[in-house]
């Protein structure tokens, strides 16, 4: 038993009963159970997935940390390791998978692409980081990260789990956590949260074409979490500017 992480510090337990008795809090014992059985989803997008498999193989072997149970179904998984480049065509599926995972759920952005677009960021069908859609808990740098780096990221996630109080976690609140709206593939990837702005851009273009000036539709990709409203204003300002 990992006594250090289970016991609440400050309580002296006599050495002869240390293996049998533990003084702890509900948070600690609950998180201790959870952190040692984080089941990842078997979900590979690109190159990083190969290193994820290498981590599962004999040399690194992440089953030592209670993570070897890779579930192909999101409904049985705790951690989504986004291993690879997130493309616009794949985002609807990823968001849907995330919505299907039971809570508590975590997301690890593995590698440069999942964290921020990576070498393919400038591409036309590449999303600059999964954090535009999903809340990410741990980012792992590297292209691809070595299996050791990924292991380190998973340990960082365990530490994060250690410090989560039952009270105050979003998944134990009375209100259900709202699902993330699934983006739609249109002329570009469209986030339902940004429909207003896309609509404005389309109408602006129609007006511009009515007028002789050549108009260029301006809109933003749009998928920043939370700050969509602020960006919408910025987008509208640009439409006017052009």
């Amino acid at each position: 038993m990992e006594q250090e992480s289970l016991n609440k510090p400050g309580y002296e337990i006599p050495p002869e009963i240390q293996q049998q008795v533990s003084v702890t809090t509900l948070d600690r014992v609950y998180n201790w159970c959870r952190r040692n059985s984080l089941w990842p989803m078997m979900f590979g997008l690109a190159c990083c997935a190969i290193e994820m498999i290498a981590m599962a193989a004999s040399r690194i072997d992440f089953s030592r940390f209670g993570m070897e149970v890779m579930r192909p179904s999101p409904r049985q998984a705790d951690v989504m390791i986004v291993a690879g480049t997130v493309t616009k065509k794949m985002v609807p599926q990823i968001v849907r998978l995330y919505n299907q995972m039971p809570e508590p759920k975590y997301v690890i952005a593995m590698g440069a692409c999942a964290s921020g677009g990576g070498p393919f960021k400038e591409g036309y069908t590449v999303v600059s980081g999964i954090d535009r859609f999903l809340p990410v808990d741990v980012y792992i740098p590297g292209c691809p990260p070595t299996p050791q780096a990924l292991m380190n990221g998973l340990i960082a996630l365990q530490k994060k789990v250690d410090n989560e109080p039952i009270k105050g976690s979003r998944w134990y609140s009375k209100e259900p956590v709202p699902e993330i709206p699934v983006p739609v593939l249109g002329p570009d990837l469209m986030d339902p949260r940004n429909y207003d702005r896309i609509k404005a851009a389309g109408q602006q273009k129609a007006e511009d074409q009515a007028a002789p000036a050549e108009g260029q539709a301006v809109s933003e990709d749009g998928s920043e979490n939370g700050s969509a409203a602020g960006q919408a204003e910025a987008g509208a300002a640009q439409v006017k500017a052009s």
Partner: protein
Amino acid sequence: MEQTIVSNSEDLAARFPQMVTADTRAGYEGYIVQPEHLVKFTKKLRDELGYDYLSSLTGVDYIEEGKFEIVYHLAKTTGGPGVVFKVKIPRDKPEVASITPIYRAAEFQEREVYDLFGVRFKNHPDLRRILTWEGFEGYPLRKDWKEPYYEEDAKPFKSRWPNGQVVRSEDNNPYNDNVQYPDGFDPEEWTYTGDELIYQALRRKHGLDSDMDTDQMIINLGPQHPSTHGVFRMVTLLEGETIIDLKPVFGYLHRNHEKIGERNTWLQNMPFTDRLDYISSMSNNFGYALAVEKLMGIKPPERAEYIRVMMAELTRIVSHLISIGFLGNDVGVFFTQVLYCLEERELILDIFEAVSGSRMMCNYFRFGGVARDLPEGVLDKVKDLVFNRLPRKIDDLDRYVTNNEIFKFRAQGVGVLTAEQAIQNGASGPILRASGVPYDLRRAAPYSIYDRFEFDVCTQEHGDTYDRYLVRLDEIRQSLRILQQVVRDIPDGPVQAGKPAYQVKVPPGEAYGRVEGPKGELGYYVVSQGKPNPYRYHVRAPSFINLTSLSDMCKGEKVADAVVILGSIDIVLGEVDR
């Protein structure tokens, strides 16, 4: 290089004077065919001259001339030089006849050209978007199309380092300000029709679009499916458990290699090639280096050639080990077989890490050589691997798997591809050879120094999943044979022709470099206009074209076998979708 696949043995322009003219532009080869004679000419090439294998089909946007050029590379499976010809079509009316009825290998490649250039192919059986999605705005590889993060036409971007300070592109470039939405576009009215189009096409083909209640149903496998080796999707039409028809759906990992490649400088593309077939990065480097070296007219020194061959063959072993291992997963030996294979893979990756600094993305080749010499001790490690450990381990693997009753039961007679189908579908690599066609570029059109080594081209005759496994196992043994000769003969000397340079001068012209990668024929078509950046950079990805055969192999099989068949094709999505 003399290994060019362009035929100069016979002048086709003289033979078919009314149809073709020679391509006389400096640095260009081959012929220019009149669009109206394309089908007739291609048929003649196939039936009269024996060019039975369509290697590559792609487009180039010559915006200044106002023309699209469709470039066809043909070869003979009996070996020898190939032929290249082009069709010029006007940019404002991009339409050309499809050659899919002649070479089925063209099916996906024409769809790709349609998707990325907007060229319509008449009589194509299923012309839909392939890498992007139905409804995507614009044609990305046209030179006047700008991606959402567009800054400048070519790298290095001036905007990145103003006044010596790095600036992130999103700070001075608002996201997606180049995305064109149609006039008065209303996202709430929009419905995505891509999936429905596939289902309709399947139903219509099999006469199921009536109101009649039938037993057939459509099942999607993927894009998130543990057996699809990545983000690949198969739409299957089933009757019970039997597959009547199957359509692969691509593009879930389309990372815009070609568009980014045309903005990059020549050398900047090298690390991007790593990420094509991310299991075998060294072979990808090899192909690209060959293509550009052909344009530049340089040749690497002896030692570099040997190192290259050594790395390419080690890569082949890694790739085949992974393929064999995951085939175990697909037939139900969950992760047992893979663990044996990955153990050896780690040892080879250690060598890669030692020479290049990275396990998977090696970025090791340079134009005219390799990035650096082998570090001390690596050669001994390779020697130990290829003489002692690997032969023994491969024999072990052979013993565990080859005669396994269950494996045989799942693999023999499943997913049969005849030799004619394989050639017609443009299959390459182990798929083609397992069908009994002894076509290996290392023999058929030797590049680098492959003509010096003794090895056999492995073939089998049944063309089923089991034979594809056997071919891969044999190829590992042959690779070991080559490696043993390499470590025996490797000379001392420089590893780079001339001084290493970040910016290379590439004279104008075109080149097609192809290598026998682990998955099959990997080709790079590059066009230079004498600038620091390639004008066109196209990858002929073997896994992508091998998938043409998937529906042929799967028809009549059970759903569970589709998984095994896909595993035996050995796709890597980075290369399929690029």
